[in-house]
């Protein structure tokens, strides 16, 4: 019923210092100093963290819950990541998307996978649609899906400036964005258009034109992979002035690539003076990260992994950045954009999604303990709960 964490160095993301945390059921009940001892009869588990850092569980706003891939043939369809792939990477909330393959992968499968992960203790939601236009939906419309289906929060990842896209027109994009926005108004859910941006030179041109020619607020347009090309990243930073939230993908970047790794991208974002609440980082976990040659053939295939978020945090800590500056891009900023009122903070009333970090050298990217909705999923670096079919 109750879990008491003593002597935690809490980043809420704001630095709260040394605190005790009381978890009651699925929520954080209390964060403060010197909580009185709890009577044994109330069934409390106590854990002394000895000053270890506690952060909110990470929110991964772009994950291929069903597994993505398939761009190099059927054998390259990525299998669905199972529960502990998320939790051992300190990801306690994930938002699923369909990608290039929105034909053999379906919204129904994405929805049921989100429900399965949620039943297993994670918190999972999803966007309707996929790369292509018109978007694949359950009810026949984006707005209908958001209104009818509890776990559908927006539409994405609709592809622009990419050879794999449907080459959507401005009007098509506006119609989808408007449908998502109205769906969000009706339900209080995110109501965003999550955009996959490719390597095409048109970059974010369609988004600028959409904002110029409509009354839709900037927050509706949420481009991701914005760090895949350096010039694109500058466009993305500029868009934040118009209200857009931009999403960095934590993929590996080679030394000569015209791209920014997530750590570099965040540093450049902060240096630009753009609003720090309008940047997020996601993993593209379960998706494939193909590299194409000029003829559109796959020359290399990586797979996204939830662990890239913690590795980004560890990298930035090593570069001397403050935890409270790094965390919002993977916690509170995401919760705010996606309208998850009980996520992204270690504060009373919020869901008890927490990670206790490991300070040992070489292990900062691996959380020591992870709690999701009040239940331990990782203890001492080892998953204690596994998906139904995990080995």
């Amino acid at each position: 019923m109750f879990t008491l964490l003593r002597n935690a160095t809490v980043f809420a993301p704001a630095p709260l210092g040394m605190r005790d945390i009381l978890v009651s059921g699925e929520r954080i009940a209390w964060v403060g100093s010197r909580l009185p001892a709890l009577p044994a009869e109330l069934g409390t588990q106590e854990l002394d963290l000895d000053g270890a850092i506690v952060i909110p569980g990470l929110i991964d706003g772009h994950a291929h819950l069903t597994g993505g891939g398939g761009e190099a043939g059927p054998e390259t369809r990525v299998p669905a990541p199972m529960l502990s792939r998320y939790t051992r990477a300190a990801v306690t909330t994930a938002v699923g998307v369909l990608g290039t393959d929105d034909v053999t992968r379906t919204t129904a499968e994405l929805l049921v996978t989100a429900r399965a992960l949620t039943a297993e203790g994670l918190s999972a939601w999803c966007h309707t649609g996929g790369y292509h236009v018109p978007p694949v939906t359950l009810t026949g419309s984006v707005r209908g899906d958001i209104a009818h289906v509890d776990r559908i929060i927006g539409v994405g990842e609709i592809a622009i400036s990419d050879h794999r896209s449907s080459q959507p027109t401005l009007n098509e994009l506006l119609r989808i964005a408007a449908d998502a926005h109205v769906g969000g108004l009706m339900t209080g859910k995110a109501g965003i258009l999550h955009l996959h941006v490719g390597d095409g030179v048109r970059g974010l041109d369609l988004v600028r034109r959409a904002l110029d020619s409509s009354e839709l607020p900037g927050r509706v347009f949420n481009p991701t992979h914005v760090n895949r090309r350096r010039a694109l990243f500058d466009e993305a930073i500029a868009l934040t002035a118009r209200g857009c939230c931009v999403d960095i993908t934590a993929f590996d970047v080679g030394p000569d690539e015209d791209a920014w790794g997530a750590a570099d991208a965040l540093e450049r974002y902060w240096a630009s003076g753009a609003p720090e609440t309008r940047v997020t980082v996601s993993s593209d976990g379960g998706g494939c990260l193909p590299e194409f040659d000029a003829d559109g053939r796959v020359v290399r295939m990586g797979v996204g992994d939830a662990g890239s978020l913690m590795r980004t945090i560890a990298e930035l800590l090593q570069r001397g950045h403050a935890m409270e500056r790094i965390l919002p891009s993977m916690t509170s900023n995401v919760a705010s954009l996606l309208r998850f009122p009980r996520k992204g903070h270690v504060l009373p009333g919020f869901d008890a999604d927490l990670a206790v970090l490991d300070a040992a050298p070489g292990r900062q990217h691996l959380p020591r303990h992870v709690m999701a909705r009040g239940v331990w999923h990782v203890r001492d670096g080892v998953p204690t709960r596994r998906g139904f079919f995990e080995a």
Partner: protein
Amino acid sequence: MLTLIENAEIHAPAPRGRGSVLLTDGRIGRVGEVDRSAVERLDPECNVIDASGCIVTPGFIDPHEHLLGGSGEKGFSTQTPMITLGEIVTAGITTVVGVLGVDTTMITMAGLLARVKGLKEEGLTAYLWSGGYNVPPSSVTQSIRNDMMFIEEVVGAGEVAIADERGLCPQVPELAKLVLDTHVGGMLSGKAGVTHFHVGEHEQRLKRLRELLDGDFAVTPQMLYPTHIARSEALMDEAIALVERGSFVDIDTADDELARWIRYYLDHGGDPAKLTVSSDAGASSPRRFYEQVCHAFVHARIPLETLLPFVTSNTATVLKLAKKGRIEAGCDGDLLIMDARSLEIRHVIAAGAHMVRDGALVHPEHFLETTTRSIHLEGTKAS
């Protein structure tokens, strides 16, 4: 954060004697002995409710309400307005299942779903039956199965009309398809997947249900859940026989005869674990449901341990709501605190939130915050 109910006669619904109930984060944390001072040390703002002289029971579950109001069978002006949060909660109902009836044309499933979601936002637990009277059913998506899988709040098909001129005369093979489609939807979504049947006044009574069970359809009694079974003794007899085969059955409180029909059911061998009671609110009211339950205890002297399961644990069982209908650690914090003799409602707690306090609704509907309207409507048949 915490709510502590003390000095209550606990009916879980089985009588558990005097004790305390501790609620934490919307769930029942502990039942029995609770050290109040320990709780107050933990949470100085703990909501402590003294239930001396009262019983505490699980919140009532009403499996059949026309949440958007009733169909206008004498024309559009006879449609009734939507059921309000206040009507439901002041009747002690903390879980409700919405339904469409004969009108699935102008009153829609999408509208019903929106109302269900609205009640959930207010703090109640709400679900819906999909389809309405007609066969084929008016589902939201392509089928009841898909509705059950895509829409979290759909628990099964209903209310499918049989023995009723308004029911479009469904034939047994198409009924079998509907029942099995719903059943599969339930399996795949982990929900009830039962078909809730409206039984009309026609003398055919439960014949269609027997034909479903006795034909080659692989339909089992557990898939069938008829209501309005108290129209006549002949219908009750058929319902009791159906219960013997394994179905749950439901009596509505639209008439004033709940106690009479409960007695008839029990006296004629009806299994007390398989009977539920609903309000059929729309033309009737949730208030009448509560009053009929009170009357059955106070005047007809049906003991609480017999009566309470009909509106709590039995309903939770047929709807496969594992965390509802019982006062046990781990179950949802839906509780009623009522005067032990009159059953007057003192407090209603839904998902841990105190919605009725000292007899008064303290949680008014959200929409009232931004409107200049003042609504008071009283039916000529209101008590």
